């Protein structure tokens, strides 16, 4: 059984916002909402790193744990989705999420006013797959078409990977091994107390 994950290779990410725009275009995300963002650390200074962040589709999702109306559900592929018909827009999930994934409409409603919106791993939501209702509330359902999230498919440098966790971690592992002379991979210094 696939367990869908995102993985952003920060050695490849160039902060081009291709992922953000691909998502906006694919799902007609309204002004004011970005389901995906690129976050940059040490902007403009040595050690500058960027990472593309959206809902990480956690195995034990904190958003689901705190939701007072229990609107979250996890698909068999490990994708965390939610039901906007149940959502009351309270914002608890926003507090619980370590990644800032939940978004709230500012101007026009995305489906319905005030309901939480977030990355669906391009898997739509509860309505019938690829129906107009699903598109209007949740955006397109690429997973149902056998495709992967467009943000990763279009990533300019193939930094953002999406797919079965085992497979994408394998790809990433190979890259790390290939770069072994350059252990500047993000997090290594901290994890292995590496001095560059």
């Amino acid at each position: 059984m696939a367990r869908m994950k995102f993985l952003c290779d920060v050695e490849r990410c160039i902060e081009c916002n291709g992922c953000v725009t691909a998502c906006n275009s694919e799902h007609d995300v309204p002004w004011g909402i970005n389901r995906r963002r690129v976050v940059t650390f040490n902007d403009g200074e040595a050690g500058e790193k960027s990472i593309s962040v959206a809902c990480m589709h956690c195995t034990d999702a904190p958003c689901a744990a705190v939701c007072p109306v229990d609107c979250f559900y996890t698909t068999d592929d490990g994708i965390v989705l939610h039901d906007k018909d149940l959502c009351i827009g309270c914002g608890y999930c926003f507090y619980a999420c370590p990644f800032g994934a939940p978004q709230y409409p500012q101007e026009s409603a995305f489906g319905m006013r005030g309901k939480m919106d977030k990355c669906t791993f391009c898997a739509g939501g509860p309505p019938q797959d690829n129906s107009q209702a699903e598109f209007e509330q949740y955006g397109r359902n690429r997973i149902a078409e056998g495709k992967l999230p467009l943000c990763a498919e279009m990533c300019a440098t193939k930094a953002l990977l999406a797919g079965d966790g085992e497979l994408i971690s394998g790809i990433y592992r190979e890259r790390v091994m290939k770069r072994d002379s350059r252990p500047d991979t993000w997090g290594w210094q901290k994890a292995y107390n590496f001095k560059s």
Partner: protein
Amino acid sequence: MGKKNRANRKTGVSKGRGAGNMDRRTFLRRSGLSLGGAAVAGMLPFSYMQKASAREKEKFTGQTDIEIRHTICTHCSVGCGVLAEVQNGVWIGQEPDFDSPFNLGSHCAKGASVRDHGLGDRRVKYPMKLVDGKWKRMSWDQAISEIGDKLLKIRDTSGPDAVFWCGSSKASNEGAYLQRKFAAFWGTNNCDHQARICHSTTVAGVANTWGYGAMTNSYNDMHNSKAMLFIGSNAAEAHPVAMQHVLRGKENGAVMIVVDPRFTRTAAHADQYVRLRPGTDVAFIWGLLWHIFKNGWEDKEYIRQRVYGMDEVRPEIEKWSPDVVTDVTGVPEEQVFQVAKTMADNRPGTIVWCMGGTQHHTGNNNTRAYCIFQLALGNIGVSGGGANIFRGHDNVQGATDIGPNSHTLPGYYGLTEGAWKHWARVWDVAYEWLKSRFDLSQQYDSGDGKPAYTMNIPGIPVSRWIDGVLENKTNLSQKDNFRAVFFQGHACNSQTRGPEMKQALEKLELVVISDPYPTHMAVMSDRKNDTYLLPTSTQFETYGSVTASNRSIQWREKVIEPLFESLPDHVILYKLAKKFGFADQMFKHIKINGEEPLIEDVLREVNRGTWTIGYTGQSPERIKLHTQHRGTFNTTTLKAEGGPLDGEYYGLPWPCWGPPEMKHPGTPLLYDPSLPVAQGGLTFRARFGVERDGVSLLADNSYSRGSDIKDGYPEFSADMLKQLGWWDDLTADEKIEAEGKNWKTDLSGGIQRVAIEHGCAPFGNAKARCVVWTFPDPVPLHREPLYTPRYDLVSRYPTYADRKSLWRLPNRYQSIQATDYSREFPIVFISGRLVEYEGGGEETRSNRWLAKLQPDMFAEINPKDANTAGIKDKDWVWLEGPEGGRIKVRAMVTRRVMPGVTWTPFHFGGWFQGKDLVDRYPEGTAPYVRGEACNTATTYGYDPVTQMQETKATLCRIQRA
């Protein structure tokens, strides 16, 4: 198949989707399998994701009327493939083009946003004109008739040179070619496009070094580099998908060095970052070569065989000892040494430069210094090496090659009588008739005091059109000032000296803007009348060919019909040609459907005439076949492996010699002698004669593989074929055509064919030259910017003397540098790109998805300068240039720039000196994001060879607003 119940949702079991009998997980497993396969195969490319096809879409959505159309992104020169999903004529989705060997499905923000073009709610929707300050709708017929009458009246009284015809690097090859041809038939060389202010100094500098002014290798070839030196290039923002290839090269072990005044997003990925003072590139490169020669790291055998004049450059290099270099450039001595050693130790290495290097009044010196550096290391003509000049716009390479350039006819033929006669023959019009279209009333100063007719004098370039309007007409090398301008696909906010531009616009009798959007030009001046907007289609609403930076040509399909009342470039040009009465001559061998010239016929005409750079082999049929089978090309070599195009290079990168029937595979790497010319190999071009001062300029013991001449040789001509005894290799028909001709003018292609059959390059086999004796600086010299922060260095490194007439205009150098502005204007002002926007930005700032990512114009200011001026992050500030232009922008306080340097993006427009001009746009067309054009505050300064504007080193002062 009703709505799923809650239980189903919880488990995610989703039965009964639109159509088909494969459930979701089965499908995922299938894609998982192919994913695993790709992962085993190695690193990139991971083309594991499912390819989009209309059939698949149908299968899962039940929608049967979706078509997939293939086109090329219109935002930069990488040439990314775009797959557009179109339903009932509406562009509803975009899928990754995994087959494209350039982008392998990838896009940056701009490429991922192109579907917004199909919505186009901010577009100019119908022809309009200003009537007493209000925009009034009109019909196309009315617009063409009014504009045409006004232009003909101006032509009658002031001659054909009184109109400036600005074309575009965003036009297709065919559109750009027609823009040039149109100006010729109107009777002027006053036409130009973005290359002038983008890479003109590259084209001239590089062509004068080794023959062609183009990227020598390709983005893909950077997989093979051992070192990559970026100087004045911010690929991560300007060419983001190129970074896929760059980072692949880095992962293959290449050392990546970024030299830039600004710590760019590209620098963030570099192994070495060097911060240099803007405008000191020559000093820095000579500093590198100082170490290379001192340590004997130069490639002596390569220089002996293939390089002319290196010894003449060495005395200049010897002046640049480490302490001098550090004083002038600001780069620490050990960093200069480290870069030199890294490049010497890691060969082949490539150099990449962009507008940080080109946009200087000494731009030609910069580009030539880069070339000389690569020649010294023996890095040109080898895979992994090269001068990888990343071009800007999507078709700036093609428009430079065959489009509207004021100094040449298509194919770099120049403007000599011979050039005109060549094209008159290709166009099948009488030379005398063509000549009669021009101003023959008198001759003018052609630049060196020699009188000539305007037909043979380069026109006023786009960087200087405002001077064409404002300069006293007795100082011009043409009859009158510009009285009208026609801008087709060119933003005016990319040119310097905003306040004077406003003045120029207000003086003009007629302004015509042919563009999808109104552009800054429609709003920046106080014009009230005689201003027209012609709704013009984007390249997604038409079709044709486009040349990527690596010289590959791709075919664009039409994605959607022209939106609203818009028309493509070539249709508008046809309408005007008809109005002016030369349509029959101009489109003599081009089929017209209704009012649309047949694009394929236009390209065939290009094929018939453009022998100089080998645009002859890329027939529409061959290009279409390449684009169709793009998945069969190797993503590193760009060579087809098997399939119908086996052995050919993707997009038939020029030169693709001979007629299409000769089946030349294209030239993937320029000047690479390891392959026979027939298979894409090449020598350096013999362009500058055969000897100088008794020394041969031809190659010494170096020749392309399989060459029958085992040494250097001049360019081929009929006479040379006879001398070599190869004349009888021509067919009888070829002999008739080739008699008295050379490889550039023989329309039969016989001379090229015979040369290549003997393993020779038609353009000869010479040395690259380090000394360009026809340039103001035969050996590149460091000269301080006209507005320099180091005024103490002006006496040692002064600019040029003023010139009375260059490009039909006076050129000021010394008279500007005579004043020290550095005290009053202490900050160096440079500009550059944001990844979300492109060019003048009107198109991208009108795109919802991009606009929301970059809502404000800003200036990057170092904390030190900000604190001194009492400026906090996000404050409004006034940035004022020494010529009086001032812009009101937000402060971004960041160490990305060093103290004493400020940087702004150049994509903004729609404000002028503190005022938002939103009310001046026609209703519903104002871009979502507007801001000050940075060039409102930039200053005078032009390269004497190509009139490149100096925007990458001027001065300003910044105060809180």
